[in-house]
């Protein structure tokens, strides 16, 4: 009951906190405008000019289809990484041996530059959808894996003892003990992975495909069109912000409402 009663004020207070974010973004735009006036429109077009250009791209029907293509690739690669990384990370976390074996591998994979994966993917999969999807997957996998493993390893032994004494069946140990604890480690990892996935997909498209935001960026670069380039960047960042603050953050707040200070 309380959950539903708290839902409306919580949502409103969350939306209200958006003003702070908006103020911070506008402050950034002001600095951008200042820099634009100093360097001139050819080097750095101002925010208004870029917004107009983005509006133009949306109106002439180029922006949305390209964003959908990139979004689809991100979604495939990211979802795959989230599912595989979370599951494998949890399994690795259950045993000390596998965690010890996995740790250097995670460091290795995190240190591997995505551009190197991209070159390999181009050799393996050619110039199609599979290349960006694979690159996103492989770049996000270690981030999610490490988060899930860390979460599973850090579960309080005291709570495990409670689960054992009260004879919780395995599925309850998972849903009532492990997953709620794991969530606080998984969500930050998922949000980092989301950011990485967009960066990587644009980079992969720039070099390997003929469509998507990355390919559009390659064209605007060839035409020395700074305004269009920045318009695409803004479009990608907009999608990123929307996914994080309209999808992931509300889910996180709902799942972690038991934490101190979150539900208030």
């Amino acid at each position, binding site marked *: 009951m309380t959950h539903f009663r708290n839902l409306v004020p919580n949502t409103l207070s969350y939306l209200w906190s958006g003003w702070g974010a908006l103020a911070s973004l506008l402050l950034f735009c002001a600095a951008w405008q200042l820099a634009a006036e100093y360097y001139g429109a050819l080097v750095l077009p101002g925010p208004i000019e870029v917004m107009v250009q983005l509006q133009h791209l949306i109106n002439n029907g180029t922006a949305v289809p390209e964003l959908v293509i990139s979004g689809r690739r991100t979604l495939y690669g990211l979802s795959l990484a989230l599912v595989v990384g979370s599951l494998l990370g949890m399994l690795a976390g259950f045993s000390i041996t596998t965690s010890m074996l996995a740790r250097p591998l995670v460091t290795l994979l995190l240190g591997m530059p995505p551009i190197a994966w991209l070159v390999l993917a181009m050799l393996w999969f050619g110039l199609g959808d599979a290349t960006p999807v694979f690159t996103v997957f492989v770049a996000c996998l270690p981030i999610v894996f490490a988060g899930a493993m860390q979460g599973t390893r850090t579960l309080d032994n005291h*709570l495990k003892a409670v689960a*054992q*004494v*009260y004879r919780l069946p395995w599925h309850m140990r998972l849903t*009532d003990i492990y997953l709620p604890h794991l969530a606080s480690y998984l969500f930050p990892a998922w949000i980092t992975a989301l950011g990485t996935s967009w960066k990587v997909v644009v980079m992969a498209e720039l070099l390997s495909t003929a469509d998507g935001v990355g390919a559009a960026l390659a064209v605007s670069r060839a035409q020395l069109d700074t305004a269009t380039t920045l318009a695409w960047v803004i479009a990608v960042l907009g999608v990123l912000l929307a996914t994080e603050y309209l999808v992931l953050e509300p889910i996180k707040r709902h799942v*972690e409402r*038991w934490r101190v200070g979150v539900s208030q």
Partner: protein
Amino acid sequence: MSALHIRNLQHKYALTEVLSQINLDLLAGETLALVGPSGCGKSTLLHIIAGLLTPTEALIENQFRGMACMFQEPRLLPWKTAEDNIGLGLKALNIPKQARRQQARDIATTLGLTLKDLDKYPHELSGGMQSRIALGRALIIKPNLLLLDEPFSALDIGLKLELYSLLRQHITERSTAVLMITHDLMEAVRLADRILMMVPEPGRLLGEFVITRPHSTRTDSWIYQKTAELMANEQVRIGFGLSAGNLALNQASHTHKQHVGCAL
């Protein structure tokens, strides 16, 4: 009649022997207190009986069906409301949600919790409230054997006495067997039918004190007097390190021959 029998229990952490030659019987409806200085292996013994540890060597016959345990800390699941924490053991027994809720509310009222408290998360409740919930979680599954690992040691004296009487009431109604750990002799005198004294290095049972006086007639002054008598006992004084001297170990325990492991 259900009972717990332990013969020749020995436990080692690596090469250090922490429990040696433990022989113990606990019958239904009986309250047995294990007293001894810190580090004498009381908690280890309790964890072995709870099934959280496998002893190095032992013959254990446990006929008690339902078993519940209260730990030193409340150990509530932080992501569950008070009501769901109380009903945890019932959920493990596949009791439907509606019935769990009803039973949790019933037991909560006897423990002095309001319906409003039941909707709260553990971090929103005081230490005393958390202990009540932990007690509710243990009692709701109607255990035949209740293991208590100094659950009330951190509470103030008023709250402690209140929870003792709630506990005694449940024990008498259901003739639950209780094994409680304490380093407070007065607590043992107040609640137990038999007191077993333990000494460290390695953890052994020193001797037994039977308290025949019925629980209903144990007044405060009688408890103080009995505790003082126990404290004056030379073996108890040596056991707690209050007097120097040698302990006369219970020779009866040595009549059971220790098991000999398989030769390699």
